[in-house]
């Protein structure tokens, strides 16, 4: 297959002549547009329609996606997105509405946003949601701005935010962006928040702790209620990073664990497409006393009429233009209604079961980081394999030859040679068994032919990519050669 980029496939004079010659003269254009903005030639490639179709169809066949292969990335739920979601988001009554349309013409869309908020309140125990933020990190920022606004309003400003050393990188970044000092709490050898250490650093200057539960080691923070007491006694808040909410849906809600502000990545847990920069939604939920601080507008209902409410007393204002990524909400709502309360719980249970199955089958081959039972993801340390000359990066590269997307590696940062696997609930036992046998085979290859790993993967169109060179001197732009 010819893998030249499309510009290099251009043949002068060849074209797809489906456009007639333009009958209007463009001679006068120079009167309207300054000459420096005009180009004599457009560097479009000259190709026939079939050339173009084959070029892109062949490119698409090089894609590696969850629709084609197992994709066990940890710490970010990359789950399969049921096609029904897409069908419903594709309905033209949803897809063709415009943000400037009169509210009385989009009552159905507003009802969907309103109802989705109610459903998520039921799942999480929160009192109200905002769907403006386009990503988890943006919702985190809005969430901490709410906490800051609350403390400021009560003339009780604070300067510290506490973050465990196993946290997602966005948490300290968010706190820092909000102007807080980040205080890191170490984990216990078991991989949980060290509650004794926590109680030493929480004081009257602490605004919040940012936690994800289960944490990034895939472990449930068993002492979450003690953590909640310590923070609440000092009038500090608990922020819940919902990136790992998948294993808890319908089983336990963040409110019962003591959380005050949460975000849910609808593009993770609620099965809307994820990756490549979105569109996503960071649904931001708060407890009752923080309701009036949410970004505006929120959708409200009066006399059975839905409307945008801009009148929240202490709102932090807008965080995004218009109303958020509406079609993502349609997909998440479809997913939730299709599964129902019991279905969401089964999702959670199966996600945990699948991860535990992998852990049990592999723990004699790869060192499990914690002896505790894992939740939806399991973290191994490939230190032993590294001592035998093969890094976790090379293990991940070799997995590609088995048709498996590399899992997350080198995260969490507190684990050496970390390999983190999140199978998600939709994978069958056959797929899990395929992964398990691939990992076992790789482990025996490490013992008998470690040198092989320097060159893996062997079966991909592009072999080992020099990621270091790409990061040190990125070549970001194609330049025309010759001509």
């Amino acid at each position, binding site marked *: 297959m010819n893998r030249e980029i499309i510009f290099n496939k251009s043949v002068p004079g060849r074209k797809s002549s489906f456009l007639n010659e333009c009958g209007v003269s463009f001679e006068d254009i120079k009167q309207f547009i300054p000459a420096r903005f005009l180009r004599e030639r457009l560097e479009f490639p000259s190709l026939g329609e079939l050339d173009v179709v084959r070029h892109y169809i062949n490119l698409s066949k090089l894609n590696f996606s969850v629709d084609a292969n197992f994709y066990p990335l940890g710490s970010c739920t990359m789950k399969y997105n049921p096609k029904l979601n897409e069908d419903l988001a594709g309905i033209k009554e949803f897809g063709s509405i415009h943000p400037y349309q009169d509210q009385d013409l989009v009552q159905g869309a507003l009802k969907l946003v309103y109802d989705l908020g109610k459903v998520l309140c039921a799942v999480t125990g929160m009192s109200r949601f905002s769907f403006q933020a386009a990503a988890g990190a943006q919702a985190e920022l809005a969430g901490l701005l709410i906490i800051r606004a609350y403390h400021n309003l009560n003339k009780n400003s604070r300067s510290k935010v506490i973050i465990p050393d196993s946290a997602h*990188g966005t948490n300290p970044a968010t706190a820092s962006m909000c102007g807080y000092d980040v205080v890191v709490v170490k984990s216990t050898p078991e991989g949980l928040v060290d509650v004794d250490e926590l109680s030493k650093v929480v004081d009257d200057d602490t605004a919040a702790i940012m936690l994800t539960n289960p944490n990034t080691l895939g472990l449930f923070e068993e002492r979450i209620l003690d953590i909640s007491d310590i923070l609440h006694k000092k009038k500090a808040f608990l922020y819940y990073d919902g990136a790992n909410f998948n294993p808890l849906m319908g089983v336990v809600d963040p409110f019962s664990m003591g959380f005050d502000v949460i975000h849910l990545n609808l593009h993770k847990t609620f099965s809307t497409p994820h990756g490549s920069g979105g569109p996503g939604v960071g649904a931001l939920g708060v407890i009752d006393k923080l309701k009036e601080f949410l970004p505006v507008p929120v959708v409200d209902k009066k006399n059975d009429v839905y409307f945008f409410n801009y009148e929240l007393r202490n709102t932090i204002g807008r965080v995004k233009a218009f109303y958020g990524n509406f079609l993502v909400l349609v997909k998440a709502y479809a997913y939730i209604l299709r599964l129902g309360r019991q279905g969401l719980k089964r999702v959670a249970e199966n996600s945990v079961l699948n991860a535990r199955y992998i852990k049990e089958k592999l723990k004699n081959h790869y060192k499990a980081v914690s002896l505790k039972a894992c939740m939806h993801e399991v973290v191994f340390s490939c230190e032993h394999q590294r001592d035998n000359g093969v890094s976790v990066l090379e293990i991940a590269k070799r997995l590609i030859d088995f048709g498996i997307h590399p899992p997350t590696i*080198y*995260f969490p*940062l507190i684990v050496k040679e970390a390999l983190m696997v999140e199978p998600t609930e939709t994978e069958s036992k056959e797929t899990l068994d395929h992964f398990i046998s691939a990992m076992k085979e790789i482990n025996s290859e490490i013992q008998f032919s470690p040198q092989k790993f320097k060159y893996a993967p062997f079966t991909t169109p592009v072999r080992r990519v020099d*990621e*270091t060179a790409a*990061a*040190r001197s990125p070549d970001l732009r194609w330049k025309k050669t010759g001509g």
Partner: protein
Amino acid sequence: MEVKFTKSHEWIRIEENTATIGITDYAQKELGDIVFVELPEAGDNLIQGQQFATIESTKAAAEVYAPLSGEVLELNAALSDNPQLVNESPQSQGWMVKVRIRDVSQLQSLLDEDAYKDFIGKENK
């Protein structure tokens, strides 16, 4: 000339009242291939224990903490085009900043080479 170390894996070479600072061989190995180094500017004031630089590798981004307080006299401009110097030569060509030592008594909080080797031995159990 004396070389000292910190538990956060910086080295400090002391010549009269100037300290040259970088990260240790152990630190560069843990980070892996370094792709970017962000340094402070000449004239900035470092405060002991606070972050003054960031190192990005293909694995992670790490913060570098000031072993001493003092004014930045010079920085290693070669690192902006050649961050790999930190991998190839962490304690010589991969130096990061030169600082005018403000408070000599801070030197007492630093480790000598044997104590540092002991410390990383324990960290790896």
